[in-house]
């Protein structure tokens, strides 16, 4: 049968199934193929907080969304074009996302009465006409897989497990993806289980062949590679990119990396990743709790390491007293907060941006800390590197904010060259830095006149023994001081040091193609993708809109006020109730409007586009 090949410019696919169906794996592999093929892409996994929620229930649905295109991709996409649903629960949980005409590939084997009733389908949607608006392909994925593997020495249950590979094969055919990457992955994973390997490869093959031969599909698609900047690419998630950024900073600065951490979703994968790289001299320490995580990092920083602690919101709350100590000690320290839905335990596996003000103010006293925010999965690399650079240069704890969507999301990444990264100079003090009556002495709190940074002194350095602590210190000598004027001076000096970073960082990033937009959409962190996509969307309709994005959230880039005043209106979309908005309004007295979404889900670009139009309609 000859099939028609249709060329598309972009596709959004959503794989969904039970937690145990291996949908994350299927998505990952399809993504790897797609990345290797040269499309730009962006992904978003979405899984339940339970390890294995009860089979076949709505709670147990795990899904993975992939957006790929022949042009630059900014988000995992709003409305998927294709849904692969391995059971009725997966259909029910996701159908609301699908636009009319979307393709549904449904595993008909699982649409039994029992499974349907479990999720409240009182009639079978495959039969009752309720899916008429969609292009439905009901395929017996499970039994076809079992059938394809009948020659293998496997129980039915074992054979069924490969149904995700069967689906992968089918989808790979449908979108003309090479399957080499998936094969390589399987070969590696099942190197020690040749039987399982063979079965999985066979299932993959069978899925592909099924697509090619069945009459169910009369067309198939190709999406041409995008043409990004030349170079070597790989596909990377935010948490891995962040880990690599830290290792890069360690390599470039010559400072051994130390991570003190306590597992917590969605930050744990940074601990997992870094623990693999002991051959870089990376020391990972799984502490007894978050307080010990940051405490050990402070000890390591005092010892002259590039010290890091990673966690999510509730962990930051616990670390806050110790972060205050790091502020008082003026030691380099990187604090990673992979934000998730709050308050309290909240929505642990979902995304949110509601820890910004916690990072700013979640400590007793005046306790200023720079804050860097990553804006895409691959950008976590740059953000981590920049956080390390600021921490070391200014001898200060630095917050690095990412979120659940960035952490688990993934995109292609143009590999950097380590030598081209900006230098990081630990510049340890090795000699006395002051004179008193002609005698050289150490003043551990004598500041660099430019950066206001104090010296970093490694224990073991002869002649520089000294003591530091959390009580207020005399300017210069660092001795305990209860002097009122000195306290006021130190409070202002610590603040000025952090504010001073604005001097040397780049100006606010602004994208205003026509230069005469009336509305500025101001974002930070992971809204970068949806805001960018929304702006592109509305610009296609001739609407003029500018997009500015804040990477260094504290202090703001020096020209922020000036940029803001250039626009009649400012709109700030945030996955919180208006945290950046408060800071912008309070700092610049600009009547910025908020667009807030606190659903544990990233913005859709259409939501932002609608808000843009709405604002402009009222200018």
């Amino acid at each position, binding site marked *: 049968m000859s099939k028609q090949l249709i060329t598309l410019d972009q596709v959004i696919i959503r794989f969904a199934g039970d937690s145990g169906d291996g949908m994350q794996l299927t998505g990952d592999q399809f993504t790897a193929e797609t990345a290797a093929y040269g499309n730009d892409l962006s992904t978003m996994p979405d899984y339940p907080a339970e390890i294995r929620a009860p089979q076949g229930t709505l709670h147990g649905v795990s899904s993975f969304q992939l957006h790929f295109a022949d042009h630059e991709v900014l988000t995992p996409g709003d409305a998927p074009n294709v849904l692969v649903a391995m059971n009725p629960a997966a259909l029910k949980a996701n159908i609301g996302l699908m636009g009319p005409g979307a393709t549904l590939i449904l595993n008909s084997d699982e649409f039994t009465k029992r499974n349907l009733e479990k999720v409240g389908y009182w009639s079978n949607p495959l039969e009752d006409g309720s899916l008429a608006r969609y292009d439905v392909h009901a395929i017996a994925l499970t039994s076809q897989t079992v059938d394809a593997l009948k020659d293998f020495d496997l129980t039915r249950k074992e054979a069924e497990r490969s149904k995700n590979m069967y689906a992968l094969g089918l989808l790979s055919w449908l979108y003309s993806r090479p399957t080499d*990457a998936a094969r390589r992955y399987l070969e590696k994973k099942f190197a020690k289980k040749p039987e399982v390997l063979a079965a999985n490869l066979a299932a993959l093959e069978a899925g592909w062949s099924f697509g090619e031969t069945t009459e169910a599909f009369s067309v198939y698609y190709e999406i041409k590679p995008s043409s990004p900047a030349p170079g070597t690419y790989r596909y990377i998630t935010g948490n891995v990119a962040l880990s690599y950024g830290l290792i890069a900073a360690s390599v470039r600065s010559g400072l051994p990396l130390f991570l003190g951490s306590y597992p917590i979703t969605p930050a744990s994968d940074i601990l997992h990743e870094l623990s693999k790289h002991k051959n870089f001299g990376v020391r990972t*320490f799984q502490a007894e709790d978050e307080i010990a995580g940051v405490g050990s990092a402070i000890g390591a920083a005092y010892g002259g390491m590039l010290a890091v602690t990673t966690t999510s919101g509730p962990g930051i709350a616990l670390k806050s007293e110790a972060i205050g100590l790091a502020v008082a000690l003026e030691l380099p320290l990187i604090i990673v907060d992979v934000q998730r839905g709050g308050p309290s335990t909240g929505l642990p596996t979902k995304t949110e941006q509601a820890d910004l003000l916690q990072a700013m103010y979640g400590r007793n006293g005046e306790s200023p800390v720079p804050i860097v925010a990553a804006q895409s999965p691959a950008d976590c690399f740059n953000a981590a590197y920049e956080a390390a650079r600021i921490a070391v240069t200014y001898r200060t704890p630095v917050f690095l904010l990412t979120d659940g969507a960035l952490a688990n999301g993934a995109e292609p990444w143009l590999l950097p060259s380590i030598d081209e990264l900006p230098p990081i100079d630990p510049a340890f003090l090795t000699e006395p830095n002051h004179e008193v009556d002609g005698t050289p002495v150490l003043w551990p709190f004598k500041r660099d006149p430019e950066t206001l940074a104090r010296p970093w002194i490694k224990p073991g350095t002869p002649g520089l023994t000294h003591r530091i602590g959390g009580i207020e210190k005399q300017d210069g000598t660092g001795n305990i001081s209860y002097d009122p004027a000195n306290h006021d001076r130190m409070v202002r000096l610590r603040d000025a040091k952090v504010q001073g970073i604005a001097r040397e960082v780049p100006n606010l990033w602004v994208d205003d193609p026509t230069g005469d937009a009336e509305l500025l959409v101001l974002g930070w962190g992971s809204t970068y993708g949806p805001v960018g996509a929304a702006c592109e969307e509305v610009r296609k309709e001739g609407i003029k809109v500018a997009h500015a994005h804040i990477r260094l959230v504290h202090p703001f880039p020096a020209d922020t006020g000036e940029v803001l005043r250039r626009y009649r209106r400012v709109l700030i979309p945030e996955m919180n109730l208006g945290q950046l908005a408060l800071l912008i309004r309070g700092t610049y007295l600009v009547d910025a409007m908020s667009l807030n979404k606190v659903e544990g889900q990233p913005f859709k670009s259409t939501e932002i586009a609608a808000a843009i139009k709405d604002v402009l309609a009222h200018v």
Partner: protein
Amino acid sequence: MSETFASLSLVPKTTTPLSAKDFKTDQEVRWCPGCGDYAILAAVQAFLPELGVARENITIISGIGCSSRFPYYVDTYGMHSIHGRAPAIATGLSVTRPDLSVWVVTGDGDALSIGGNHLIHAMRRNVNLKILLFNNRIYGLTKGQYSPTSEEGKITKSTPYGSLDHPFNPVSLALGVECTFVARTLDSDRKHLTETLRAAAAHEGTAIVEIMQNCDIFNDGAWAPLKDAEVRDENLIRLEHGQPIRVGASRGVFRDDRGELFIDEVTEANAAKVVIHDAHMDDPSAAFQLSRLSDPVRLSNTPVGVFRDVARPVFDRQMQAQIDEVSRKLGTGDFDRLLRSADTWEIA
């Protein structure tokens, strides 16, 4: 003494001999007159030269409390951190800097109240720390509330009608989490204190030393039965490895048929049956049993000295060994190779 400690094998030696004076800082010591902390400070300053290592390779980390002011007064590297967190901070330092001799100074509130968790985890991990726990059975710095080592029924500012909590026995607690070195000594017994510091310093891994310390202001005389010249010898049990365990002038520790310890007069007949102290037993049970001898209120039969001193892999060594091992296997980290460890593709 210039003999070096095996436990400090990774710490650079000093070439110039040091004296107690070298360990004094220019900061005024700000404890109350008569506070037991002075005696401990003097003993530590006098002992540190014995380590034979350079001053700059010693670091003292403390928490918050009167006792935790200690680092300011010792001319080494040091950090006066936050309440209860010294063991955690010191762990980060110890595992990254095996070339340092790391000491923790803490109080009964700092170590056992707010800091209890870090303390027990450091001990189970056998982090290479020498922990000096100044136990004055009270919160000194906050002006006299009861602490987790205060006796039941204690009347303090926060318990005007008497406290209800049953106290920790710090030695039992440490043995319960299998700390590899556990000792107890007194601020006022300079010789015993110094010997105990020496034994702790010689130990590889976590050494905890409970120092019974007097707080002149808020809990004066808390340890009187163990300090007053007239009675102390009848109350103290001085543990010495390999020696029979004697109590006062005439008594000794015996074991009955059910394995329980009891104290009795030593006679010629039973002298051979006095229990011999073995600090090196792998099983902490015997040491635990000794820790139960003392009466928490009257303080009779209170053992001092080294309860336990056994070898177990040390955390910083283990971490270094793992790094070495992995580096040997995988080769020293190459960043470019790391970037390319996943599938890559080229765009021309």
